């Protein structure tokens, strides 16, 4: 008799192949862990923002300024392939920070964020910024358990990015257009950029700003404040 399915092939102990139906989502494991992160964050009264962009768009500069000006406790999970350079910059602001080096990995996933949250263990009321690996492609697919997704683009990258990288812009709750202090030096049509963000994602807010000069940051802080979930009763 077949040892796998019990059929009687009449040829004694034989093996034959059979099909196992799985119908399982490939990202189910990550999505499950992200759901646990989301529950953990809610239980501990935390607000988490997943900050994504291409390398050099200005995520860390924006965070340095945001930490200083936002008020209230902030913790940062820094994702980079290598080095602790960004974590050192955040540490200098006084915020709690932990660096995740992904090595060859091109994005953060929910298990990395779970470990980082465990290390940071932020106090209730803390805003947790997750600075993803600089990459406009891969991080879009991986839910980390965040409450909201902010994509940073900069005028020096060109206005065509929303249509070229639609997966990233499709998942954004807010698009922060950084480096607008350089608009007079580059060929960048702000109206075309906003139009194309809304072509791929009609619901996304676009906030033009300059993390170095300060333009538009008040709108970013207001947006953060409005996106923060109501403080649950810890229990």
């Amino acid at each position, binding site marked *: 008799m077949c040892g*796998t399915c019990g059929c009687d092939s009449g040829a004694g102990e034989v*093996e*034959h*192949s*059979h*099909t*196992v*139906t*799985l*119908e*399982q*989502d*490939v*990202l*189910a*494991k*990550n999505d499950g862990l992200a759901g646990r992160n989301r529950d953990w964050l809610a239980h501990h009264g935390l607000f988490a923002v997943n900050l994504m962009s291409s390398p050099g768009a200005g995520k860390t500069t924006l965070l340095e300024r945001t930490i200083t000006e936002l008020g209230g406790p902030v913790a940062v999970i820094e994702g980079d392939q290598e080095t602790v350079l960004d974590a050192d910059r955040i540490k200098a602001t006084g915020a709690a920070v932990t660096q995740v080096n992904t090595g*060859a*990995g*091109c*994005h953060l*996933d929910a298990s990395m964020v779970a470990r980082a949250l465990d290390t940071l263990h932020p106090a209730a009321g803390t805003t947790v910024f997750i600075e993803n690996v600089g990459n406009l*492609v*891969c991080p*879009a*697919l*991986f839910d980390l358990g965040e409450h909201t997704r902010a994509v940073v683009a900069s005028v020096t990258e060109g206005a065509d990015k929303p*249509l070229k990288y*639609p*997966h990233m812009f*499709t998942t954004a709750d807010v698009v922060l257009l950084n480096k607008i202090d350089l608009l007079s030096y580059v060929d960048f049509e702000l109206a075309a950029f906003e139009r194309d963000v809304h*072509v*791929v994602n*009609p619901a996304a807010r676009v906030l033009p700003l300059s993390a170095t000069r300060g333009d538009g940051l008040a709108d970013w802080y207001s947006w953060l404040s409005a996106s923060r979930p109501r403080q649950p009763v810890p229990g």
Partner: protein
Amino acid sequence: MHELSITRSVVETILERTGETKVLDVSLEIGKLSGVVADSVRFCFELVCAGTPLEGAALHISEPGGRAHCRTCGEEFTMDDLIPLCPCGSADIEMLTGRELRITSVEVV
């Protein structure tokens, strides 16, 4: 190259179900608008399977195209990209196919 970690997830998920049983054949569904490149998964698959009960397994990938339903005009239409726009002009659409990222079945000994 998130396809490497995607392929690792595929193999880990299968191993959780099949254990030490030899796997001969793997069937996946990777939608054309899923953000995952089927060719890159094919490239990574052999590498990730090495040394596991999946080593040498054949890989079959079906790639459903994008289809969506328009909530405004009620029609179904083809989506060649991620831009949510019905030919009637509405962006209020629901994607039906094209974003699949699923292990459909495996063949084991």
